[in-house]
């Protein structure tokens, strides 16, 4: 195998275990490609360990996540609650508006009557 072919095969050879006899033979006799193998080994073990490098989430996130069962089972998620019951809320608003209208009408009428 030529160096270019080996270098193309090295990432998956190193990480995924795609073993090729040709690659192995070449590595045993080519210092340049063997160096390249070490680069990839270094890269992959570094990437793997990156997983344990975690970031602290915003403090409120934990409480938001922990309250998911409460919010989903008891309808405490106000926004989704309103969306789910949009029709009822709309009907309620309409009733309220009619009621308010009637009250205004009644008051005016009363004023007219007393005037």
């Amino acid at each position: 195998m030529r160096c270019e072919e080996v270098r193309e095969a090295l990432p998956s050879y190193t990480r995924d275990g795609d073993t090729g006899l040709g690659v192995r033979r070449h590595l045993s006799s080519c210092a340049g490609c063997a160096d390249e193998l070490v680069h990839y080994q270094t890269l992959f073990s570094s990437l793997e360990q990156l997983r344990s490098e975690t970031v602290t989430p915003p403090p409120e996130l934990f409480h938001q996540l922990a309250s998911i069962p409460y919010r989903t089972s008891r309808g405490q998620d106000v926004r989704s609650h309103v969306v789910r019951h949009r029709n009822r809320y709309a009907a309620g608003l309409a009733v309220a508006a009619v009621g308010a209208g009637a009250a205004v009408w009644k008051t005016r009428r009363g004023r007219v009557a007393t005037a």
Partner: protein
Amino acid sequence: MRRPSDHRDGASSERVSAEIVERCKNGDERAWAELVKATHRDVYTLCLRILGDPQDAAEATQDAYLKAWRGLHGFRGDAMFQTWLYRVASNSALSKHRSRRRRQSHESGSQDDVLTELPSSGSVEATAGARIEVQALQAALARLPEQYRTAVTLRDVYGMSIEEMAQQLGISETAAKVRVHRGRKRLRGMLFEGEER
């Protein structure tokens, strides 16, 4: 060298016991809080690595746990819980990513926020004692074109299989392999040759 296997045990999160998962399945809210406490840091970091933006990462994390809570009954104990959770989380992050791209398709900004948000202390030790500084590695990852960064992150940081990645990204396995391969080569170039592309 020790070869990373697919779906490794969570390195930084505490193990979630089968008992906790069972209690969660039965609607135990205290068990759920324990589960969240043990895992949310890892899940948030995964989302941040894919999305590069803390606000988006927090939203994707919330979405992931909501899906996890609702889908817990579908989790069979044959896989590690963390593995299952990572799958749900990467799905949420990728779907957030797609909707964000649709929203911002006219903009061409890169997500370099990841550079400032991810930890920068220490270094990771490799075989033969070689080290790549965490900061240098994360900076190099952040400079990768987004599709390569996502592919390398899912495959080489989180150990996702090519098959599953292809499924989650909605691409063929061949395309997923190509992305991973190109991403790795570019990373090597940046870290060992000082190449930018």
